[in-house]
């Protein structure tokens, strides 16, 4: 019998989360709830200097006065912020110098994810700063990087060892009072990555971090800060998978990118947190603030493949401050079952001759809702600014939704803006065409979905593209080859 879209739908509905397992590692967890004492305790635990503690407390005071945003096109049971534990760290604290010292159980976890460290080490020259429940437990290739003067470490280490850099840049592009979740993150961030590329250095390898949420009832608050000094280049990869769990988990990360004059940052994300089961129970809440600042001639490129999380609320943005700076955003968002995604980007053009490109592909299946929300703003001083946006949606089945909410604000006559959006389904004629040429329906759907997302997949670094394909398979197995 021919494979039809209905079959695909059925398959999607029954597809269980493959990476749903739970690693039994002893964790040191703080009591639930949030108050100034907890923040002081987090800060103390991490042996942070006084200014950092004050910075966190200031953010907490701002957060207390803020209200949870409701404008996004998502509905969910709001998390009870007093019922979350704000700190958890794998218990075996000492830092490892070699893989042998790492908890074998942890290594086993990563093996299941197909990102075993030794393989990674041998393979493509990727340095991995693994964040397992907030604290980095293994860092590789640090020495190679150190030779070039590149700093790549956990943010808590950076606070201790490079306070001048952290102090100068943290919170500059995502201020504490930016939004509810950014303020929360600023107050309680547990750990994250820090990266500094010195002037004129081209980072010789892709830097990557794998995020995991592991401890039951633990909030995850990552803080990433990437600084590319003048004329430097870095490609940064971030990937996530999380174990199966019934209770909702909150993730509120903040990523700040700073590209100084002539620098280039490429930031790629593959996100595959637990999306909840077929009834829409459980799953991760992903409320992320990501923003980059471009100085003169700088370039920031965001690429993301979003397949997981029950609720996603994420807008990687570029502030094009310097003249001739370039911002790019490439995104594939796949939603299935009861997943909800409200994602997009903001391109703020401030400098002259700034350019931005937005390519967003949304694929909705099951009973999911997928929204693109983007802002293109051309300031009155941004002469000759140029933007191109394209948002395409693919709907599978009749119970899902695809939405587009673009905001375009131009106050300069030299601005050139193009925005285009389409919504479609996989046409029977397309399938028929493939069938005619001996390609069975399953392969045909794979081919079409692949072609639909090709523009974005192509933007991923080689090493990551493989994983991205793998993650797409989990969300849309049977449709992606």
């Amino acid at each position, binding site marked *: 019998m021919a494979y039809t879209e209905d079959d695909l739908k059925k398959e999607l509905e029954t597809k269980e989360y493959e990476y749903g397992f739970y690693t039994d590692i002893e964790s040191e967890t703080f009591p639930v709830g949030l108050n100034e004492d907890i923040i002081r305790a987090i800060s103390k635990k991490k042996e942070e200097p006084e200014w950092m503690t004050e910075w966190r407390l200031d953010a907490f005071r701002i957060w207390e006065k803020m209200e949870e945003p409701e404008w996004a096109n998502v509905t969910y049971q709001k998390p009870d912020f007093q019922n979350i534990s704000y700190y958890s760290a794998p218990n075996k604290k000492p830092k490892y110098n070699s893989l042998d010292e790492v908890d074998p159980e942890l290594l086993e976890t990563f093996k299941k994810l197909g990102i075993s460290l030794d393989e990674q080490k041998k393979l493509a020259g990727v340095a991995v700063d693994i964040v397992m429940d907030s604290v980095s437990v293994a860092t590789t290739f640090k020495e190679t990087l150190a030779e070039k003067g590149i700093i790549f470490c956990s943010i808590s280490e950076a606070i201790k060892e490079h306070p001048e850099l952290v102090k100068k840049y943290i919170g500059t592009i995502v201020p504490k009072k930016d939004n509810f979740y950014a303020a929360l993150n600023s107050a309680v961030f547990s750990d994250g990555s820090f990266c500094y590329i010195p002037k004129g250095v081209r980072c010789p390898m892709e830097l990557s971090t794998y995020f995991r949420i592991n401890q039951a009832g633990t909030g995850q608050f990552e803080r990433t800060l990437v600084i590319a000094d003048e004329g430097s280049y870095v490609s940064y990869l971030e990937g996530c998978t999380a174990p199966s769990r019934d209770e909702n988990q909150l993730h509120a990360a903040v990523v700040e990118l700073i590209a100084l004059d002539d620098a280039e940052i490429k930031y790629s994300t593959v996100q595959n947190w637990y999306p909840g089961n077929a009834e829409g129970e459980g799953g991760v809440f992903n409320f992320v603030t990501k923003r980059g600042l471009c100085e003169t001639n700088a370039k920031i490129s965001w690429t993301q493949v979003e397949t997981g999380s029950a609720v996603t609320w994420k807008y990687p943005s570029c502030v094009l401050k310097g003249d001739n700076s370039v911002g790019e955003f490439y995104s594939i968002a796949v939603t299935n079952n009861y997943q909800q995604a409200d994602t997009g980007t903001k391109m703020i053009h401030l400098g002259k001759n700034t350019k931005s490109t937005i390519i967003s592909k949304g694929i909705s299946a099951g009973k999911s809702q997928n929204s693109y929300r983007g802002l293109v703003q051309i300031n009155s001083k941004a002469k000759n600014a140029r933007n191109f946006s394209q948002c395409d949606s693919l709907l599978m089945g*009749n119970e899902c939704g*695809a939405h587009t909410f673009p905001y375009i604000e*131009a106050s300069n*006559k030299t601005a*050139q803006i193009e*925005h285009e*959006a389409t919504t479609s389904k996989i046409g029977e004629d397309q399938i028929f065409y493939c069938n005619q040429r001996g390609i069975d329906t399953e392969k045909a759907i794979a081919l079409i979905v692949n072609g639909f997302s090709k523009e974005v997949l192509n933007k991923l670094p080689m090493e990551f593209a493989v994983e991205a394909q793998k993650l797409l398979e989990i969300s849309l197995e049977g449709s992606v080859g």
Partner: protein
Amino acid sequence: MDLKDKLVSSFLAFENTVDVNSSIHDIRSEAIKRFEQQGFPSKKEEAWKYTSLKGVLKHDFSIFPKEENALEFRDVKKYFINDLDTYKIVFIDGKYSSHLSETTHDKIDVCLMSAALTHDKYKAVIDNYFNKVAKQDGLTSLNTAFSREGAYIHISANKMADKPVQIIHFSTGNEAAQMLQPRNLIIVDENSHVQIIERHQSLTDNPVLTNSVTEIYADKRAFVDYYKIQNDNEHASLIDNTYIEQQTQSVVSVHTFAFGGNITRNNLNFYQKGERIDSILNGVTIIENKQHVDHYTLVHHTEPNCESHQDYKGIFDEKATGVFNGKIIVNKEAQKTNAFQSNNNILLSDKATINSKPQLEIFADDVKCSHGCTIGQLDEKALFYMQSRGIGEKEARALLMYAFANNILESVKIPQLKARINKLIAKKLNVDIGFDL
């Protein structure tokens, strides 16, 4: 006392002048309560993010029309499309002007809302249609509460209106500041056809705020062609709320030509209630100075095999601000929907601003929906090409802009109206070209 309080308390005075026992009165009382709750919209509301009424609402508007300020036809002749034979419904300061109007009850009803609301003959129709499709937001409710006068057009089944209808509202400035709230009801029965031209015109520099509500019901296979000409002076603000309900196979098109006014806000809502419906929304905006035009459109597809076409073009000079907010909702039952939306803009000045928000909300999979939005300038190469062939720069620019808006002008089906709009555009662009090239 701010305007909201004034309006709410004036409602008591208003009640003394109307028949409080009619069924309409309950609708009015409900409406004033809703307005009291919701008030005027502020920029905090998503729908009003880019348009602020604050500057307009600070005037001390008088709410009730005084006695008719007589106008001679020769004084206002230029505001009519007078080389076209039409029915005319003319209001001066909110009061019906019988000597400027030409109405009919011969087979079709082209008359007054006040008559329809008070005569028993119309009761069944009013009960059936009045305030049924209108949204219950603050501004519409305010209009409903004070609804008394406007145009009432009822084309019964299988009739074709023998000539177009012009609805014109003049304000003469016999009040320091005036608020007008016309309420129009247009019912087009099965297989019927009507063309309507609507215009609001202020004749003085006194501030005017018009909060107009129009309900249009197009029954099966009905055909409605509606033209809105907005070319007012810079002291007149207009909030135009139009609600359209369409039945199977009906075709309704609304063309909005926004060439002037202080703040112009067009809320245009299409609700499709049958299959194989076509909804057409066109607009040309050409403004300068500090003028502000906001097009807020909604097309709600609820049944299969329907279409909608939206095409809005804007040219903004000096400190003008343009807003386009278009929303298409496709319910999951509405398979095989074709919905298109396009918004193109040209900015001529560094101080001009355009904010565009074309939105799609789609719940059905077998649909073709697209939207496009561009913001750009005139093509320098094309300008140079024309100049090198002896066409002056100003004329060359005007030609390009005319070409930019042309496909919407082409959709005007009344030749005399098209000629008039061409003239208005030539005047706007300050060139002496006959554009019917």
